[in-house]
């Protein structure tokens, strides 16, 4: 392969480094009205009255919007395909507020200062209601968070708002109770995972204007421009054909920008005033009023025989979706469907539970999407089981984990909100990943621990993980390639570049198929008027789904070039070939540049355009093994990261440098969730970690050493053998670090994050026992 599996700099990196305008707010109309939102100071309240007269009379205020200005149309901001697997339980503005930071009213004014003054002039009378702040008490609580009659599910997802249940699910393979009874060893443990904030560097932002054709143009920092267009149209009852959504460069998303946030309000302001408008979230709003990761409780039972054969997995999950049910069911299901097939040789599996509402900031999509939560629970429990069995954790995993050519019944049963799709693992190099990982970390020399001269303890721990490559039969990507005079191409894709490098790797795939230098393929992505449809950047779909669409399109363009070349040369198509620069047949040749100039200026004139689409019929999982070395200070409980070795099977890496940094970046977000990051609320429901001083993401001082490698793997259904790689990196750190900590000091932390306080308390408790 000439251009695939090759390092190339990203197509936009240099321009962005040099400060070229490209992000949503760079492109806002200079005369945009500033839209700001009055947000709820209460976790749960009914709005009795909003007096907006004073604000409206303020000079420079153009528009004040309350729930009375919108028709009551229930929707979901989840940013998913249609019909959504999330309940329609949200209104653009409502007469109830359900978390601190929920929208009460919006103002649009000529400048920032006037908008702030207008917010201060709004008089709101609330009936403060008692909130539900602990998700373990939410189910069938007498306080009902969503009593409103209009809300509904789009298809059965277990939605029971009267019981505070946003979604529920249960699946069975075999009879797990019977299996566990027959096992020699059974462990039963609970694990808690916390919420996590995305902390993308660019806050959520959107702007709107009416263009010269009278159409509504929205620029949005979104991962799902086509879903934004559809949901805006449905919710505002404004024709889809009159909306154009443009996704410019995005300053990070990680799932946080799959959902819709500012788009409704700028659209409403611009449609009402006819003037351009923009909203830029404050960092506090990003923390309080967008989404974070679903906190979950796992009650897990594992049963095995003395010889180390895992026989049964029984998991009950309780997930906290916060005030609204965005991604409630699907994140919950991924905590099972992209975790438990790892151990595919079991006789039986049961996975089920509920997703409940609380009066906290809503949960939504976040890289890992349930898999990181489930992975922490399962891979911690596996180490605990190994200890009870007296079996080496790597030997246990090698014996029980999924291997190439195998399958798991879970694939057919569980999809994302729907039934799944049966598939065999045509590419699965997990055994290699584990073997190579042990070498990279020096497992045999370091396991389980070593006491250093200063009393600190170094130890190693590991976990294995899987993810997916898009949602089969749902996620669709498409591409269009246009040949230009002089012989270069435009590649138009709906796929959403959000910093992960999708524009670059899709260009590489097209170049490989066409046989031309990637510099001759000019990519343009994510503009609902100009690019073909794509569901968007989520569910690890871009490389696999959109990549396959691009490959098909480029293959078709290649055929069209050969056909036109044969016509120009007067040779049979079957005897004509295109080598990337010339079309040749029987000693005759015409360069691509000559052919295209002929097509556009002189003979047989016509425009060559190829369009193709791709919908996955399966979701081949990327796999990985993550190995960590830590140093624990038993005097303080502090954990220092010494090294992280990750060996990943994502099939072919289209661009090895970009793939590697996808994994490295994912690892650091996973490490953050494991030991540094926590979303903390006060007892009255206020978010304490609502700024970047209180919410601590890893800095470059903590992350000094990582080794990421890729297994030599080829996925037959993927473009040039590729699977997706966007999420897999995040999954292993919580379990690997928890396991390493246990190996160091014998303290098992079953509630993330693993803070020095918890570690030290564990050490003290242990000493007390002794």
């Amino acid at each position, binding site marked *: 392969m000439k251009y695939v599996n090759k390092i190339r700099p990203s197509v936009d990196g*240099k321009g962005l*480094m040099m400060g070229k305008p490209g992000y949503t707010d760079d492109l806002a109309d200079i005369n945009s009205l500033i839209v700001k939102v009055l947000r709820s100071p209460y976790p749960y309240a009914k709005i009795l009255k909003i007096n907006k007269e004073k604000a409206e009379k303020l000079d420079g205020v153009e528009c004040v919007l309350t729930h009375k200005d919108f028709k009551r149309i229930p929707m979901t901001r989840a940013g998913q395909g249609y019909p959504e697997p999330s309940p329609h339980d949200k209104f653009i503005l409502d007469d109830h507020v359900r978390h601190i930071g929920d929208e009460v009213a919006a103002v649009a004014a000529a400048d920032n200062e006037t908008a702030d003054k207008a917010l201060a002039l709004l008089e709101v009378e609330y009936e403060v209601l008692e909130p539900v702040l602990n998700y373990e008490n939410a189910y069938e609580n007498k306080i009902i968070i969503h009593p409103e009659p209009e809300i509904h599910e789009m298809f059965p997802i277990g939605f029971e708002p009267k019981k505070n249940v946003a979604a529920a699910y249960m699946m069975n393979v075999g009879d797990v109770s019977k299996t566990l009874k027959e096992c020699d060893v059974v462990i039963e443990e609970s694990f808690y995972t916390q919420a996590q904030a995305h902390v*993308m*560097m660019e806050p959520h932002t959107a702007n709107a204007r009416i263009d010269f054709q009278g159409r509504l143009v929205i620029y949005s920092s979104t991962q799902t421009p086509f879903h934004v267009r559809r949901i805006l149209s449905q919710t505002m009852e404004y024709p889809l054909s009159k909306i154009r959504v443009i996704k410019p460069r995005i300053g990070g998303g990680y799932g946080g920008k799959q959902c819709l946030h500012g788009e409704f309000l700028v659209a409403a302001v611009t449609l009402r005033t006819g003037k351009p408008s923009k909203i830029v979230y404050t960092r506090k709003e990003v923390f309080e009023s967008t989404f974070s990761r679903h906190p979950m409780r796992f009650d897990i039972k594992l049963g095995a025989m003395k010889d180390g054969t895992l026989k049964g997995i029984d998991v009950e999950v309780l997930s906290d979706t916060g005030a609204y049910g965005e991604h409630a069911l699907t994140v919950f299901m991924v905590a099972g469907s992209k975790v438990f097939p790892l151990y595919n040789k079991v006789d039986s599996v049961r996975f089920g539970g509920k997703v409940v509402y609380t009066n906290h900031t809503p949960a939504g999509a976040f890289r890992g999407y349930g898999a990181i939560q489930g992975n922490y629970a399962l891979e911690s429990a596996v180490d605990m089981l190994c200890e009870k069995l007296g079996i080496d954790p790597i030997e246990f995993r090698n014996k029980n984990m999924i291997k190439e050519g195998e399958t798991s019944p879970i694939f057919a049963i569980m999809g994302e909100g729907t039934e799944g799709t049966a598939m065999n693992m045509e590419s699965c190099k997990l055994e290699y990943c584990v073997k190579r990982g042990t070498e990279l970390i020096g497992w045999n020399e370091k396991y389980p621990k070593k006491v250093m001269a200063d009393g600190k303890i170094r130890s190693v721990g590991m976990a294995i993980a899987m993810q997916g490559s898009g949602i089969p039969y749902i996620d669709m990507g498409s591409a269009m390639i246009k040949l230009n005079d002089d012989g270069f191409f435009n590649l138009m894709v709906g796929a959403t570049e959000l910093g992960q490098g999708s524009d670059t790797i899709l260009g590489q795939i097209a170049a490989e198929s066409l046989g031309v230098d990637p510099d001759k393929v000019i990519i343009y992505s994510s503009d609902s008027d100009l690019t073909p449809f794509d569901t968007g950047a989520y569910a690890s779909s871009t490389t696999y789904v959109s990549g396959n669409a691009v490959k098909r399109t480029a293959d078709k363009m290649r055929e069209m070039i050969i056909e036109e070349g044969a016509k120009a040369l007067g040779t049979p198509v079957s005897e004509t070939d295109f080598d990337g620069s010339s079309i040749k047949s029987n000693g005759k040749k015409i360069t691509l540049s000559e052919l295209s100039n002929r097509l556009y200026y002189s003979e047989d004139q016509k425009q060559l355009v190829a369009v193709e689409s791709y919908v996955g019929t399966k979701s081949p999982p990327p796999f990985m093994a993550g190995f960590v070395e830590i140093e624990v200070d038993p005097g303080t409980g502090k954990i220092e990261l010494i090294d992280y070795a990750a060996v990943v099977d994502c099939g072919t890496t289209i661009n090895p440098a970009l793939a590697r940094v996808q994994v490295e970046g994912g690892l650091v977000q996973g490490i953050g969730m494991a030991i540094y990051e926590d979303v903390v609320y006060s007892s009255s429901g206020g978010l304490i970690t609502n700024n970047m001083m209180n919410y601590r993401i890893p800095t470059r001082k903590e992350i000094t050493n990582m080794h990421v490698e890729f297994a030599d793997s080829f996925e037959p259904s993927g473009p040039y053998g590729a699977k997706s790689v966007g999420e897999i990196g995040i999954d292993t750190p919580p379990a690997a670090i928890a396991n390493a900590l246990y190996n160091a000091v014998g303290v098992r932390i079953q509630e993330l994050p693993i803070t020095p306080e918890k570690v030290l308390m564990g050490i003290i408790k242990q000493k007390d026992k002794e």
Partner: protein
Amino acid sequence: MKTKINVNGTMKTFEVKPDEYLLDTLKNSGYVSVRRGCDTTSCGVCTVLLDGNPIASCSYLSCRADEHSVTTVEGIPEDAALIADFFGHEGADQCGYCNPSMALTLYAMKRELKNPSDDEIRTYLVGNLCRCSGYVAQHRAIRAYLEVE
């Protein structure tokens, strides 16, 4: 109040409010590469150079920059392009939102520190947060940039 600031080598006069921050003055004057990330001087995305030293423009009053020189990334195109090449080779540029501020801080570091150790580099850049890259690819690129004479 009138404030004279030399921006990227050109003396400019800005009409600023007494409580206006340099980030807003620059952004409102079309320097879009200076970006806002956090509101609490925590993330480093708004970094510019004041007389050659990196500062957080989100918490620096514009009037204090009177008669000083300010450099945004547009003022160091050759170095920004060079840094971009090293970042690009490592796949470290990712979303790019914080990269103009990274380029400016690196540019200043290269002039301030002679043969810095890995730890000195990390300490110098610790205020430039990145949520995409995981830092180690950036570090590889930074090492390569520092080797250029």
